[in-house]
């Protein structure tokens, strides 16, 4: 039951978060909140000289939201926007899957541990919130792989 949700990897990232409150040269910041439970997260993105991404986050929330932020920062830090994009897309996809998707470990690495979360609609937002903050910060800093164009 609870084992669906609380994979060892998740508990480990929860207890030992990586990349939290790391000082970076921030290009843009995004603050997100989960209005149903009050969880908050702030994600900063910056860029290394080689064009790869720098990610830092801070916030408070449940084990799922905190672990997800930690896994995200580990996965995205040091990747180029082009390398990060498929990972971000795959994670979003996984969260929408209602437990029906076999996650690709080559792409998602530790993040496959969140497959079980997608069975609990009320927890999906917990897992997604940091990733949404990341995307938002990237758009603000224009550090996304694809440029978004607007139809008028």
């Amino acid at each position, binding site marked *: *039951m*609870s084992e669906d949700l609380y994979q060892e990897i998740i508990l480990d990232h929860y*207890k030992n978060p990586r990349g939290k409150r790391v000082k970076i040269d921030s290009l843009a910041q995004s603050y997100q909140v989960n209005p*149903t439970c*009050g*969880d908050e997260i702030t994600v900063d993105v910056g860029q290394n000289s080689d064009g790869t991404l720098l990610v830092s986050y801070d916030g408070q929330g*449940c084990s799922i939201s905190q672990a997800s932020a930690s896994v995200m920062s580990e996965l995205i830090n040091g990747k180029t926007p082009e390398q990060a994009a498929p990972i971000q897309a795959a994670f979003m996809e996984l969260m929408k899957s209602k437990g029906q998707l076999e996650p690709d470990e080559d792409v998602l690495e530790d993040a496959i541990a969140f497959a079980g979360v997608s069975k*609990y609609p009320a*927890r999906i937002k917990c897992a997604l919130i940091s990733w949404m903050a990341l995307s938002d910060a990237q758009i603000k800093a224009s550090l996304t792989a694809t440029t978004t164009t607007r139809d008028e």
Partner: protein
Amino acid sequence: MFDVNEVRADFPILSRSVRGVPLVYLDSGATSQKPTQVLDAERFFYENSNAVVHRGAHALAEEATDAYERARQTISSFVGAQVDEIVFTKNATEGINLVAYAFSNATDKARQGLDVDQRFVIGPGDSIVVTEMEHHANLVPWQELCAKTGAQLRWFGITDEGRLDIQPGIIDSTTKFVSVVHQSNLLGTINPVREIMDMAHAVGALGMVDLCQSVPHMPVNVQELGADFASWSGHKMLGPTGIGILWGRTELLNIMPPFLTGGSMIEMVHMDQSTYAPAPQRFEAGVPMVAQAIGLARACEYLSDLGMENVFQHEQELTAYTLAELAKIPGVRVIGPLDTRDRGSAVSFVVDGIHPHDVGHLMDAMGVAVRVGHHCCWPTCRRFDVPATTRITTYIYNDKSDIDQAIAGIKSAQEFFGASVAVSA
């Protein structure tokens, strides 16, 4: 006193399983379950007398109108009100907004030179008073009213114990309106509303009470509260979703500008202007929630049969038990009063080192439905410096075994996360 097992037999949902284990429903503060009697009453109406009310002259329309108005009568008696003082709304939130819009509409009309009652005209220099323990439903409408009119919002704070901190000078000569919750849905605190309403009236302000958590759980007589308006929901008191009640003094309802306008609330309509019916019709524009009113009246009858004194007594016992059992668990802290004096059955708590979402999840895995989050009282959470709480709420169909299962759930969460899990902050 009633027999909980007999009561439970009226609620089919309580026999189901969730996550492979029997359901223990401890979230009635969010919404209650519905007895067969209420569902049958709604269905009987649809299958026998369904028609439009107050607009038709045929046999079904007469029956429907009669059933709808009898429902209003039953509900008004349940809270000691006059029948014309009862306005049907879709939920408590609408009732509170209705009163807030009386102010903004009267203010707009006064600006256009139209004749309105000055008690509802508000602007810079005026103030509205609420409390720090309001549900968002009794906070945000007043913020919006202030934003639109330039009036100032003020509030009573909360003591560490979870009681209202009634400081002098908050309600003063600038105050035009005071609105407070009768029982906090997060803390469980029962507030001295009569005292506060008297303070409001002493400075010439009007007053409102939010009865969402009191009417379902204790005897309430609206006349005795000393308020001018009150609002509550049907779905928390065994009634259907989609219905709430605004109670208001007739004299005020009849001089307030209308809120929603359209059919059934008019007296005379011309292309360029209209006149309006007296209350309660004045505030019931459009085809109303007829079946839901009938269902809610049946819920009132169900509760009256149990006796609201008994309902209150039953919950007081459960609350005392819940508080005692929680006190035994190291690392658990109750947010709100620690004994049953002036407190109802909503019990919020936090568990050291474990986020409420995780506590709730592990309780849910054992079949225990509790609510986690800010309970639409975000400012109250901030006051106690917690991001959220886990909340147990009980009702007529709960007994001590439900609380035991909840306690077991909390302990299992502690075990799972390690009783004193060291999360690096």
